């Protein structure tokens, strides 16, 4: 049973986090401030640390740096800051992943599982995802379609990667908004739709004549290889490096 250490000063959020993680089968412990959290992280050797950046005694970024200096424990930063600079700073300081408040239990659980997979070497996903003629190099953040390089914006790449990792499955727009944009979904929000339209243009298709991106009305969207290549509809994940 993986052990998760939660370093969070807000008692309500700390309780809710511990409860949600307990329900999902994790062993949990917590600290209400940076210094006790550091001590627990070193002494108790948790499998994952969930670290709030806004702590009362030391700034969370400092805790992150100090912890990284003495331990290789995977750290997920929980931050109320949604600006890119703050997130990049946290990742550069040694965080393995981040969640933006307010986050759901399912999202946190998915990120913990992903980190545990990577930490345990059980992550079978390679650095390259292939769907039909679409080849996504996750590490290099490049995409090739039938051999030609696609020029994708950062969010378009994230969107395509998320769909490619679930090729053949219908993914809801709510899920895309939550997981790719890490924002709550409003029914009237067209952010996902407009990015999907751009992605279609760059994949050389339209909503009326889809090849890879198929809209499933009232449900979501599915990425799959064109029907002319039926043997390549399932994601083919191979390690390129």
């Amino acid at each position, binding site marked *: 049973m993986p052990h998760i250490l939660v370093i969070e000063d807000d008692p309500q959020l700390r309780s809710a986090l511990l409860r949600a993680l307990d329900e999902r089968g994790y062993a949990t412990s917590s600290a209400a401030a940076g210094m006790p959290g550091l001590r627990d992280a070193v002494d108790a050797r948790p499998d994952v640390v969930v670290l709030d950046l806004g702590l009362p005694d030391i700034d969370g970024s400092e805790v992150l740096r100090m912890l990284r200096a003495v331990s290789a424990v995977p750290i997920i930063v929980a931050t109320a800051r949604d600006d890119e600079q703050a997130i990049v700073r946290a990742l550069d300081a040694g965080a393995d992943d981040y969640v933006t408040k307010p986050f759901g239990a399912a999202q946190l659980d998915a990120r913990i599982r992903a980190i545990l997979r990577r930490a345990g070497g059980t992550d079978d996903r390679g650095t390259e995802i292939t769907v039909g003629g679409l080849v996504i190099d996750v590490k290099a953040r490049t995409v090739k379609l039938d051999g030609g390089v696609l020029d994708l914006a950062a969010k378009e790449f994230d969107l395509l990667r998320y769909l490619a990792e679930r090729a053949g499955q219908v993914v809801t727009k709510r899920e895309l908004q939550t997981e790719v944009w890490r924002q*709550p979904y409003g029914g009237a929000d067209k952010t996902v739709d407009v990015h999907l339209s751009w992605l279609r243009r760059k994949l050389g298709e339209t909503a009326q004549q889809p090849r890879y991106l198929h809209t499933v009305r009232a449900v979501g969207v599915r990425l799959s290889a064109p029907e002319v290549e039926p043997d390549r509809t399932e994601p083919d994940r191979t390690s390129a490096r």
Partner: protein
Amino acid sequence: MSSMRRQLAGLVAVTTSLVLLAFLIPLAIVLRHNAADRGIAAATDAAQSTAALIAVDPNTAPGINGRIDDGLTLSVFLGDGTVYGAAGSRTPSVELASRGRAFSAASGSGVEVLVPVQGMPGGTAVVRAYAAPSLLNRGVTRTWLILAALGAALFALGLILADRLGRRLTTAVSALAGTADRLAAGDLEARVTPDGPNEIRRVGEELNRLASRIGELLTAEREEVADLAHRLRTPVAALRLDADSIRSDVDRDRVGADVDYLTRVVDEVIRTARRPVREGAGASADLAKVARDRVAFWTPLAEDDGRTLTLAVPDQPVLVRVAIEDLATAVDGLLQNVFAHTTDGVDATVNVTADGVLTVADTGGGFTDVPERGVSAVSTGLGLDIARRTAEASGGGMTIGRSSAGGAEVTLRFGAA
């Protein structure tokens, strides 16, 4: 040359001219009088010395040189009517002098000096020395030219000094103005090197102090907003985790939707609080460019939905007092409103005018109830509220109506930058 330098040069030109005229004109008059006095004195000397000579030895009269100088002639009138020296008639002045009185008098353009010599054989003789105008004005023209040249030199020197002073002032003031412009444009690192007169140096020092203060206030604002985000989002995070723990799917979805709505409202509160941080020391954006960019962004979705998205913007920039990020969000809010609340196939137009007015109209069913107050009654999301607040923060506003095609029409009026 800058306006300030021109004005300073003009002021110095006028004052220098007045001072020079007040000094040089009386001086010129005095010099002219002095020249005349010198001429008369020379004539008097010549007349008196000749009179003394004749009085001692009357026989010297015939040998008198009548032309002493270019401008000075000498005549001796004997009592018997004989005239020696320069030719001349026996004028009433000579007659008057023959009565034993010496005097000088104006004669034509010159001055004559008459000295009687009594005790001469044949009656009183009169020595007449005539100072011509050339003697009376000797050296005046040259002196006046020197004075004029001196005046012109002083005038030019005054202008040069005024220009140098003006340049020093304008350089210092231009540096101040340039720094103030950079600060207004949001460059809070801009500082001026205090220079020029004390007063302008002080203004420069105060401007630097003000810039530092603005930077400190914005930093404090940034920290305040970061803290606000933390304080608001942390309890919402607890609420979301608790909502996720609800066992009933129906209840969980319902509470989850409420938490989503609360999250969007909190996000908007934080966005609004961040406005001063985004705008920095000054906000300005080109509405025409932003409208073009945003319409280009939404066009692929419009094509997928079978809509026509038409854009009409002026060729020249339309600068409005809004941070570019806020302006893009406001335009996105209106366009998203069309996509979210009209069916596929409904067309939309985006129109921008040169006076900073953006209109988004569609051919859909329009708002079912145009509210008299605000927009909350028809705003099913936050997009219109965000757009309204952005327009109002710039000094403008938002109006909602019906388009000529019968659909909805939302107009945002922005304050000019």
